[in-house]
């Protein structure tokens, strides 16, 4: 079980490609006068969040890797490192990503980490790099356990996770409208992911896919982009800062403030941590479901339309 298996750190290797692609997108927007918006401080915040994500990965990566290696000692299975194993691992890891991402939007403890990725009101390639610094604390590494126990080596699983993140980089753009129909049907695309970043009521909690959009279609969370309802990017209630430290930690601070306020039952404290974002013990806030219902109350003609089923 102690197979010495190593793969390149593809995320770090992709950094020059990320920079080149951002310059290309910027040039396109300047030249064509369309295809997205840039703002200096917003982009800098996103880039610093990306750098911080790499740094926290270097500092805390041993936690996840240690956990996965511990599981690797337990499993009697070893699927090896053949091309078929790599492909199968990539597909199953993408399924793992779908559920991590879905929990990231439906469980506040995980949302506290993921929220920063949605905190920009812009949608360009720098937004892709606005990544969490606190992912380790969500314990979502647990969802990698089945892959390891099935016999995929931890190095392979992390390699596939890196490839998954690299795939998702290029879909954070408005320069690409729609791709060929077969591609849009199977793969996550800029159009599908714009929906995911939309704060429009119809687009909330949709399109969690990493690489294959088929997971959303399979599990009922797919919403196509509508030309009549252009995605409005950002959070339901946007944050008022470009400070990376505040971006990284603000929802954790809010979560603990909520859960530790005096006069709550233990159930309410737990719900502040684990219920969907927007939960409040006194009903003073709105979850995404409540936001959709209120939107439909104001726009009854939209009942039954895309995103409101």
């Amino acid at each position, binding site marked *: 079980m102690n197979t010495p298996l190593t793969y390149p*750190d593809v995320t*770090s*290797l992709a*950094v*020059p490609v990320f*920079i080149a692609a*951002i*310059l290309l997108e*910027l040039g396109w927007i*300047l030249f064509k006068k369309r295809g997205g*918006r*840039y*703002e*200096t*401080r*917003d*982009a*800098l915040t996103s*880039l*610093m969040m990306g*750098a911080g994500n*790499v740094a926290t990965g270097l500092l805390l990566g041993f936690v996840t890797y240690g956990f996965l290696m511990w599981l690797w000692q337990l499993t009697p299975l070893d699927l090896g490192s053949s091309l078929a194993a790599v492909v199968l691992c990539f597909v199953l890891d993408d399924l793992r990503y779908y559920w991590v991402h879905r929990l990231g939007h439906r469980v506040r403890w995980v949302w506290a980490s993921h929220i920063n990725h949605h905190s920009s*009101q*812009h949608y360009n390639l*720098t937004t892709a790099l606005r990544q969490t610094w606190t992912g380790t604390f969500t314990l979502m590494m647990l969802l990698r356990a089945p892959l390891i126990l099935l016999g995929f080596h931890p190095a392979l699983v992390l390699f596939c996770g890196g490839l998954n993140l690299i795939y998702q980089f290029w879909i954070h753009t408005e320069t690409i409208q729609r791709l060929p129909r077969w591609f849009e049907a199977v793969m996550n695309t800029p159009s599908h992911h714009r929906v995911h970043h939309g704060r429009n009521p119809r687009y909330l909690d949709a399109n969690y896919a990493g690489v294959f959009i088929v997971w959303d279609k399979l599990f009922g969370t797919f919403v196509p982009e509508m030309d009549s309802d252009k995605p*409005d990017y*950002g959070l*339901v*209630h*946007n*944050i*008022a*800062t*470009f*400070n990376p430290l*505040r*971006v990284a*930690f*603000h929802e954790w*601070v*809010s979560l603990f403030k909520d859960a530790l306020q005096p006069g709550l039952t233990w159930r309410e404290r737990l719900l502040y941590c684990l219920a969907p974002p927007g939960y409040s013990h006194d009903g003073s806030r709105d979850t995404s479901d409540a936001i959709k219902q*209120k*939107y439909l109350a*104001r726009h009854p003609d939209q009942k039954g339309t895309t995103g409101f089923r």
Partner: protein
Amino acid sequence: MPLEILLPLVVLGIAGLGLALHLLGFSTPLRLTCEAHVRAAWLREHPEDAPQTILLTQDGRAALLRLASGHLGLLRALGADTVAQYLGRATWQITANGIKLTLPDFATQPLNIRLTEAERQDWLALKDHL
């Protein structure tokens, strides 16, 4: 990738892109132009609580709102965009150039709103008028 390559690449990449964006004019802050602009930006985040009174600053950076719910709201420019926040639990402090607002929100740094003397009087009057 070795750290001795990755680190300079990241630092120079961020600095270079930041400089390029600034020189290309992407640092120009949003200016709130009129009450309609403020109203639309507020309703974008709080569609069920329409502004009844709007006090827009001369520099177009912020507006104090009295809302249909009776609460106070602040709409302000943040980079090229806006943020819309309730001021229910904000602390108000008079400064030489206007008013300093401190919100009990980790994501919001204390805000120095630049106001003329007349604007400050109007803002304080709207704050105290329930």
